[in-house]
């Protein structure tokens, strides 16, 4: 398992720097507290805060056949147990009057009275309804299967995945950042959010506590006395800004996936831990 290196996506063009060098450099430039070891207790684990950014669904899920049947049945029962409405009473009266007029065959009186029949009203309403063009529930991005777009799978929760270059491999992970002394882990996650895109991204963090964790050890080549491995703590956030901001990221570096498609991108053990805290919608 390659070690996650803290790098911004905008600097992805730079080459891979040695983990220890990068760690020391970032510490020296940013942190205030003396940080010989990543943690005050001097344990060999690195702390990483990761961000599980979710786009909540915009559209309700389609009904299953059973649900459709049940909905129809409930509607039927409601109509059966209801009373006649004004519109229906009017329709009944007009039906009676028309029948009488046909039976009696004389139309001297009340010829021009009720020009507007119930049928005409209903037609007018139908026309008005057809004039309105609602938004499409299945978007183009769905049809093209463009996973970088935010405007796909409007009825599901989408999670942001980011491709990071670790060692000599590209790995898909949730966006993360190395923890720095002097900030909380949630602060680390917020920092990750801020560096994701140039535009201001508004997200609602769901509490101070992490929703899951994942720990792994570095490969032998990278282990030192002070860094045995890393522990990643995930924080959930709900995306609030609307609109597509895929232009802010490089092509091929990010992807919005729902829970089923996570398996195409994440490593098995990582996936197993992530799936535990993602609500299956």
């Amino acid at each position, binding site marked *: 398992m390659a070690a996650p290196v803290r790098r911004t996506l905008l600097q992805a063009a730079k080459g891979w720097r040695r983990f220890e060098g990068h760690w020391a450099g970032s510490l020296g430039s940013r942190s205030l507290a003396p940080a010989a070891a990543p943690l005050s207790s001097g344990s060999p684990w690195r702390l990483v805060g990761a961000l599980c950014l979710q786009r909540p669904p915009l*559209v309700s899920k389609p009904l299953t056949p059973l649900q459709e049947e049940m909905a129809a049945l409930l509607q039927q029962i409601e109509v059966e147990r209801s009373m006649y409405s004004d519109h229906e009473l009017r329709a009944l009266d007009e039906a009676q009057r028309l029948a009488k007029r046909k039976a009696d065959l004389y139309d001297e009186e009340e010829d021009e009275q009720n020009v507007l029949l119930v049928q005409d009203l209903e037609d007018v309403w139908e026309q008005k309804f057809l004039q309105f063009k609602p938004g499409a529930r299945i978007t183009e991005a769905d049809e093209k299967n463009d996973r970088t777009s935010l405007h796909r799978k409007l009825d599901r929760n989408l999670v942001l995945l980011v491709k990071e270059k670790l060692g000599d491999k590209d790995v898909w992970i949730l966006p993360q950042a190395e923890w720095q002394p002097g900030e909380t882990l949630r602060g680390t996650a917020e920092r990750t959010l801020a560096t994701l895109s140039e535009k201001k991204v508004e997200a609602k963090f769901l509490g101070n506590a992490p929703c899951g*964790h994942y720990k792994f050890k570095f490969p032998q080549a990278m282990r030192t006395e002070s860094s045995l491995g890393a522990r990643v703590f995930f924080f959930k956030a709900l995306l609030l800004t609307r609109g597509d901001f895929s232009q802010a990221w490089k092509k091929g570096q990010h992807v919005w996936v729902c829970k089923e498609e996570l398996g195409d991108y994440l490593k098995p053990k990582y996936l197993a831990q992530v799936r*535990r805290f993602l609500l299956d919608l």
Partner: protein
Amino acid sequence: MAVAALRASARALRSGSWLLGTWQTQIRDTHQRASLFSFWELIPMRAEPLRKKKKVDPKKDQAAKDRLKKRIRRLEKASQELIPIEDFITPVKLFDKARQRPHMELPFEESERRALLLKKWSLYKHREHEMERDAIKSMLEAQQEALQELQLLSPELHAEATKRDPNLFPFEKEGPDYTPPVSNYQPPEGRYHDITKVYTQVEFKR
């Protein structure tokens, strides 16, 4: 009364001026009169002068105020008028018999189909509930494990993670609709007249 007294005295004077006897009676009470020609003193004014009602007026006013206060107190004690719940008041037009639908007997197949569908639905909902419960349980377990790991790793971070987040609530978010929002939608023009009835309960404060 004064006029009648004046008339009586004028008559007495007239009649007395002709007869000697009455003239003598006229002289009878001259000791009480200031002058013989003073009319106004003939009018018996021996009653007390009209008092200015000093004591009785305040008493009457006080009595009136007390009566008013008693009435107010009675009104307050009586139960206040409650705001009517409009949902519980059936509008009168719905009591019309013509509004009721004719009672339809369901055919046997239809009632069977409905019963079976309801059973399938209850099973489906039960399974859905179990799935949701398991999902929530796994989420909670994952969170608890993460918190425990954090505790082992660094207690300060754990303490900060278990703090309440004051910015979390109130959290308002609109739920999913049937269709996504149209980008260039022009809503129809018009004004909004709010005709909701607002009731106020008057509170009598002492």
